[in-house]
């Protein structure tokens, strides 16, 4: 599941631009992810310049800054 750290977000829309399923909804300073239709492809995590998105898989959080090569 994609996790969203709101306090880090710049609302820049970069994740929206690269999401192949178009399931990220950005309105002003509100970002939401339609998790039903998200495929956990993690492209948005790479698309985010500042690490406001992470992936949780099997109870483990993959967040580039902490996990090093874990995810990518």
């Amino acid at each position, binding site marked *: 599941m994609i996790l969203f750290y709101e306090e880090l977000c710049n609302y820049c*829309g970069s994740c*929206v*631009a690269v999401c192949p399923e178009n399931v990220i909804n950005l309105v002003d300073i509100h970002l939401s992810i339609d998790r039903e239709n998200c495929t956990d492809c993690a492209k948005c995590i790479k698309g985010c310049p500042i690490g406001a998105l992470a992936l949780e898989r099997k109870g483990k959080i993959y967040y580039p800054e902490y996990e090093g090569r874990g995810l990518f």
Partner: protein
Amino acid sequence: MHTKYDVVVVGAGPAGSIAARTAAERGLKTLLLEKRQEIGSPVRCAEAISHETLIRYIEPEAAWISATVHGGRIFSPNGTPVVIQQPNVGYVLERKLFDRRLAETAVNAGAEVLVKARVTGVINTDDQICGVTVRYHRRDHAIQADIVIAADGVESQVARWAGINSTHELRDVDICAQYLMSNLDPDVYSPEYCDFYIGRELAPRGYVWVFPKGPDLANVGVGIGGTISGRNGKLAIDYLNDFVRTHFPEGRVLSQVAGCVPVGDSLPEIVGNGLMIVGDAAHHSDPISGGGIANAMISGHFAAETAADAIAAGDLSAEFLRPYPERWDEEIGKNFRHICRIRDGVMKFSDKTFDRCAQVLNKLSPEKITMREIFKTVLLHQPRLLLELRHLIAPGWI
């Protein structure tokens, strides 16, 4: 707000404002819709533009120019600068004010502008786009239009709603982070030049920029290749922090900007029945520099002219709107593919190769160092790329 317009433009960035202005100048009833409450804010840009392209659309005004640029310095990975002297070559803008001014010129030309008006969908009747739905003042409105121009930027939804896949592939974007900084080391920072730093360590498949905003104020940013982002646990912001630590340890961060820029080919489909896509929404920024302000204005202008012709002729089909993509391709787009390939080739260079190029160039006298000379030197280190270059020399790109 009326319920029927000739042209509805979605997004009041440079692409949308110039499209709306051009449409209004052609006598069309034009509506420009912007979801933000303040046009141009927040800024997602390093704000540099060349004088030559700017004056195609607006005369420079002190109110929205932060600094005049007199050339560029490219720092090779070992820190060797290559200085290109170009007096008054361009500007670093105050985009917030610039974007607002452009929208004002659209209003002056007769266009109607609404802010805090978020487009939520397109009206699609029998495969013809004939308007949009808008959320405005807590109510939903349906607005009919002969032509909808999608100028909704890099995260464009309008094209997707109309069935055109405008998603950006990670390999075709640069992921960017930027600080507005002061307290800059005067030995490193020059308010005269746009500085570019290249190198695998600093910015893999991208570059670091330091663009002057004032005597002690600059946009310091980094863009890295989308596929590289996150590798080794490093994101754009980490590269930026590394650069700041080594180059401006005393610098103060005044604001932070994030974003992505399209650096691939243009979107293959930029018109549909009753629909035209312009600017970043059409992936129109320059594949090497990521600069998109000028191209956004150009595509907005071209699209609106074609829209006016189509409306005058009473034919709103994608087929009839083709002069827009053709003109775009002819003037700018057709070179993108070659530029992409040159870029990909150059990006494979080792840091040593870049250092050697810088050394060779610095043996020339300063006035001999031009963009053309730099290209030549770089390409002599990779003759295969000369084949691509052939296509670019003829149209006068370099």
